[in-house]
């Protein structure tokens, strides 16, 4: 074999190798990303096609481009509002100085911007409310679930109540919570606004159940062998709960917590819509009431944001669950 043929061979060989590996690589990329992207593209196409055909009293249903446009708009509005806030603060300062000149004994209060919350502010409020409600639910559900799991008596006492209250929708709780909070949560300088407390408690009431049930089941199903270990070691009650019961209930508990957080997010949006509590739900409701030609697009932006945040919350819970769960690889 002479050099020329060798070179020719090599040169004909190398591209084919590259093509081959490229093909493999692209197939792998397609496998990982292709299906979701294709699904997304199909969805957008169907959306666009369907949108043009649906005629609502607010004009035709917005397509993906309208919604993207409104998303950008909402961001612009957010920026504009921030600028207004800066101007407001300056103006406030001037007014304070003017009054101090007249009324030197006055102790000025420098307040934050009093303008309306933007879409992004509403997202923040919703997240804060849902996390507070979820935290409150967890703080109640986990200890109660442990008690239920450890004591057959407590379980028999509480379980019927759980079964009755579990299927109650937030729509039913809301009026009761609103009235009770209005009657009970009375304070001149409340730490939290009443609407926040109402949403938080409504969220808590609806999302407490999966955590409660799963925790109690997790505790009940502690393996008899581990209980025997604990008995042989004569672990005290508290040590037993801390070293044996809690860790073994963790996988079940976290499954419950994840379901709870999902419910909490869903319930929150409904609660905000109904109760005029600030947040994404109120944004949707306000836009619905606006009835302007942009309203539907803006609501769609909110719908997508709600879905995306719900998804992210679940992912975050999953990451935490993977970190604390001793059943490696058992979580998906």
């Amino acid at each position, binding site marked *: 074999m002479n050099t020329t043929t060798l070179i020719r061979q090599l040169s004909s060989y190398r591209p084919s190798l590259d093509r081959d590996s490229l093909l493999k690589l692209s197939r792998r990329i397609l496998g990982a990303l292709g299906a979701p992207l294709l699904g997304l593209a199909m969805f957008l196409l169907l959306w666009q096609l369907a949108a043009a055909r649906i005629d609502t009293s607010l004009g035709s249903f917005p397509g993906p481009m309208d919604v993207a446009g409104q998303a950008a708009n909402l961001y612009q509005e957010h920026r504009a509002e921030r600028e207004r806030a800066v101007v407001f603060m300056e103006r406030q300062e001037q007014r304070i100085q003017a009054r101090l000149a007249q009324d030197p004994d006055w102790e000025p209060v420098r307040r934050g911007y009093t303008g309306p919350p933007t879409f992004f502010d509403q997202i923040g409020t919703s997240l804060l409310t849902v996390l507070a409600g979820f935290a409150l639910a967890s703080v109640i559900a986990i200890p109660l679930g442990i008690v239920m799991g450890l004591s057959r008596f407590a379980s028999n006492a509480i379980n019927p109540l759980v079964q009755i209250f579990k299927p109650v929708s937030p729509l039913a709780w809301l009026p009761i919570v609103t009235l009770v909070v209005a009657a009970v949560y009375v304070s001149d300088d409340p730490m939290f606004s009443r609407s926040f407390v109402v949403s938080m408690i409504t969220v808590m009431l609806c999302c407490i159940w999966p955590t409660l049930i799963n925790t109690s089941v997790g505790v009940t199903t502690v*393996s008899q062998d581990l209980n025997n*270990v604990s*008995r042989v070691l004569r672990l005290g009650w508290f040590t037993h709960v801390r*070293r044996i019961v809690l860790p073994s209930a963790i996988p079940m508990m976290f499954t419950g917590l994840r379901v709870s957080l999902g419910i909490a997010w869903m319930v929150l949006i409904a609660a905000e819509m109904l109760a005029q509590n600030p947040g994404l739900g109120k944004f949707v409701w306000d836009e619905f009431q606006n009835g302007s030609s942009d309203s539907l697009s803006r609501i769609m932006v909110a719908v997508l944001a709600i879905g995306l945040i719900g998804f992210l919350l679940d992912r975050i819970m999953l990451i935490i669950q993977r970190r604390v769960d001793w059943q490696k690889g058992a979580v998906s």
Partner: protein
Amino acid sequence: MKPLLDISSVSMRFPTPKGEFEALKDVNLKVNQGEFVSLIGHSGCGKSTVLNLVGGLYQATTGGIILDGKEVSEPGPERAIVFQNHSLLPWLSVWQNVELAVKEVFRGKKSRAEMRDWIEHNLDLVHMLHAKDKRPDEISGGMKQRVGIARALAMQPRLLLMDEPFGALDALTRAHLQDTLMEIQRELNNTVIMITHDVDEAVLLSDRIVMMTNGPSATIGEILNVELPRPRNRIALADDPTYNHYRHDVLSFLYEKQRKVEPFSRRRKASAPSETCTAQA
């Protein structure tokens, strides 16, 4: 000499939906300090019930169990148990599993450093020090059982109870662990009661083999003294006539005198109550 453990006239009845089930009837056994006793019998014969009674996990319906002159009424670390399926806490590392026991048993008796040395010592005994930071799901079944033994040993028990400790392991691993156990026994000379299905294991390890009759109302059928010199070597013993004689005695008890005679279909049905017995055991 006064026996370390005295099981006298023990009967055990479990309530079941179909009425009482008598698992054990009139069991009498004395175990001396430093003795290695195996309990052998068919499944469902109440071996585990005996062990759980001694462990204090059950209370005898009649009769009594006396350890060191004191009646056994609850579980405790002086009667450490090596469980059949290791029963390690899956969320703790090997080290932490042993540490949990050591901290509980030696609280106020050993300093922090002494505890650390003691854990290390016990893990070393079972050759598991190299895997001390692994979690149970990261090690093999045999290794898990070694940790289970280390945990039990670390409690410095008066009596070590082993519930088919090698039952779930493959033959090779089992042999390894039996050797390790003999090695430890040579060093510590613990008093041990072990449940087994395995005739070779019983003969190889024991000073006495307690053979149990079939349930219900199981009791001790025969007791065989194994007077083989220690240290014992499994390869050397394979051709040892005395060893084979002992083996033969046990086998004939199990498969001639206490042979299970029910037809297959009955046996399947009958296995239900006996399984409740073991499940409760």
